[in-house]
């Protein structure tokens, strides 16, 4: 048996193990649900962190995602990968959280203000929280809220603009323009980092 066959066999075992945990969790087994949590919570947390750009909120919402998952797990029919379905649940929980947190007026102001306050936001992210983050993640956290959500959903999570427009209740064109705005800002900030790096050398 060569190494690729070993990896295939391992993946197959992991997949069948996951299916078993899902089936048991559907029957109400909290032990099986805990196994699913152990398997997926770090990915879900990463999604929450990138969308919310705040550690405490991301932790709270990550908890909320798994409580919703516990309630809705019977809706999973195995038509897609469990991780894909879980990420769609997580995205919706995050967006629901954001809707609850802010009324539209606050959001309008924050969208307009955030672009000009990127420096303040950068300072607001605690050093011990951001120090372990990838350079790009630090910059994603500085993006204005809508641009950040669109960028994470499109570029990181792989949603289409039509799906994002539906999720965020915006026009498809707005989703595309927010994505381009996010890309421009990220490229600008990464270039500045590169220039600083060169200057230091």
């Amino acid at each position: 048996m060569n190494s690729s066959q070993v990896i295939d066999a391992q993946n197959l075992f992991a997949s069948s193990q996951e299916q078993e945990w899902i089936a048991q969790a559907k029957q109400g087994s909290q032990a099986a649900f805990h196994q699913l949590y152990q398997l997926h919570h770090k990915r879900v947390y990463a999604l929450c962190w990138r969308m919310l750009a705040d550690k405490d909120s991301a932790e709270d919402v990550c908890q909320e995602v798994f409580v919703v998952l516990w309630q809705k797990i019977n809706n999973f029919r195995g038509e897609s990968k469990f991780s894909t379905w879980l990420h769609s649940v997580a995205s919706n929980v995050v967006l629901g959280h954001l809707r609850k947190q802010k009324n539209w007026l606050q959001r309008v102001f924050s969208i307009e203000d955030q672009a000009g306050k990127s420096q303040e936001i950068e300072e607001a992210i605690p050093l011990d929280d951001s120090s372990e983050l990838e350079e790009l993640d630090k910059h994603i956290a500085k993006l204005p809220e809508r641009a950040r959500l669109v960028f994470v959903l499109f570029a990181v999570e792989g949603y289409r603009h039509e799906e994002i427009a539906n999720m965020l209740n915006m026009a498809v064109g707005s989703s595309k323009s927010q994505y381009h705005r996010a890309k421009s800002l990220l490229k600008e900030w990464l270039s500045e980092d590169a220039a600083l790096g060169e200057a230091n050398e």
Partner: protein
Amino acid sequence: MNKQANVESITDQVLADKVNSLPDEMTPERDLWAGIERAIQAKPQQSTSEFVVDDSKRKYFTPTAWAASVVAAVLVTWLSFSPVEEQVKPLTAQTSEANQPSNKTVVNDELVAMIQNNFTEQRQAMLVSFGQPDLKQLPLKMQTQLTQLAQARLAIEKALQNDKNNVDLLNLLRFTQQQELNLLQQLLPLTGSQAPKWQTI
């Protein structure tokens, strides 16, 4: 280097590569499982059909809110006309017929009392069936809707004291009571032990 030159130095491909190399997982600082475990013990799993019911309830909530608004609007209109009747009453009270309650008025007194008692009993039974929950646990918006309906009902009852033979007012009272009961029926599952407490964990 100006901003435009900065942006051009990082191409779309470089950005895409950086996105692809982002870590899939992040580790939350605190243990999230303890809170999730506590929350799911209080939250039973729901079957697919129950979710359908939930959706229909949500769809039903909007018409109820509209009904509450209509009742409030009708009441405001009614009360704005009521001073005219109150000015007429002292004149009719001078007659001996007005000083002695007629049989019809006695019958209506009993009818109003019966409608009020019936409503009070239904409301109380509903509250008892949900373990006498504290309605202040409900979201503020829902509390406001309930208060508006209750105020509308009280105002109609007050108006009926001055105009006991008014069939329209009696019908309006029964309609308002029914709306209040319908709203309570939808909101009570959101209170007490079934309220989402896990977010504060």
